[in-house]
């Protein structure tokens, strides 16, 4: 538990919730990152600008973090390129197939007590845990 960061994680979580709530309050939309970003990749006329603006905001937040709190974007990863690509494909395809990711289902969906989102979030937390445990305890923490 030595890596536990309760205050920062709670504050960050509240910020995420507020950002989602502000989007509902002002724009009447669900802040689901995979849906918003995925809709840009399979673009449909007249439905791209609002998505691009939101993603631009998201990327700008990343820029601010990299300038003022660069350690928040630093990490160590023992993963091969192949593993990263397989994981990326699974995350991208799975998020679209399941109609949401950690933000759409995990925050906005659970926050509205939507049954589909509760099922999806339980499913991805269980499968994510099994995967992480198998990699850490059977493959020595690197694939």
């Amino acid at each position: 538990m030595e890596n536990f960061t309760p205050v920062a994680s709670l504050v960050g979580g509240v910020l995420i919730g507020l950002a989602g709530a502000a989007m509902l309050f002002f724009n009447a939309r669900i802040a689901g990152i995979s849906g918003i970003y995925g809709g840009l990749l399979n673009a449909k006329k007249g439905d791209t600008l609002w998505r691009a603006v939101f993603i631009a905001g998201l990327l700008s937040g990343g820029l601010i973090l990299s300038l003022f709190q660069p350690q928040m974007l630093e990490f160590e990863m023992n993963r091969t390129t192949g593993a990263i690509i397989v994981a990326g494909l699974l995350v991208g395809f799975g998020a679209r197939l399941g109609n949401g990711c950690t933000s759409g289902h995990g925050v906005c969906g659970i926050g509205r007590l939507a049954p589909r989102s509760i099922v999806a979030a339980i499913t991805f937390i269980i499968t994510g845990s099994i995967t992480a445990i198998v990699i850490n305890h059977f493959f020595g923490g690197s694939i």
Partner: protein
Amino acid sequence: MAAYIVLFLCGLMFSLGLGISGMTQPEKVIGFLDFVGNWDPSLMLVLLGAVITYFIAQRFILVRETSVLGDKFQLPTRMDIDPQLVVGAAMFGTGWGMVGFCPGPALTSCITGTTEVLEFVIAMSLGMYLFGALHLRYSREPDGGASPLDHPNTAGAQTSARSA
């Protein structure tokens, strides 16, 4: 114009929250998912903070007829649990557990240009594009699902009206 300014700020606040909370550090995500090992419960507080904040806010927001900028609420309408939902979430969870990145944090970290992040985002984008291209079930519904609590004024709102 106001709608775009707010959308930009929402995206910005969202990614700042991701960074502050630790979601942009894959080792923290994996430290949470692997509860058998040296468990890091931080992500539970991220989820709790975000969900409770959103839950309280939406109770006040969704009694309105429209959003502040006059748009009809665009909420998911589906309530059924179909195989695609479970299979998709299981694929997502497997990929998430493999490297510790999900879409929001990966996009937020793009700016660093780190090889791992770029590889992940390119593969993730390809996965999303493939899904759309295959037309498996390409719905224009927002992420998430419908809730039995959704207000009659907002439940099943159509995607036509908007001023964005």
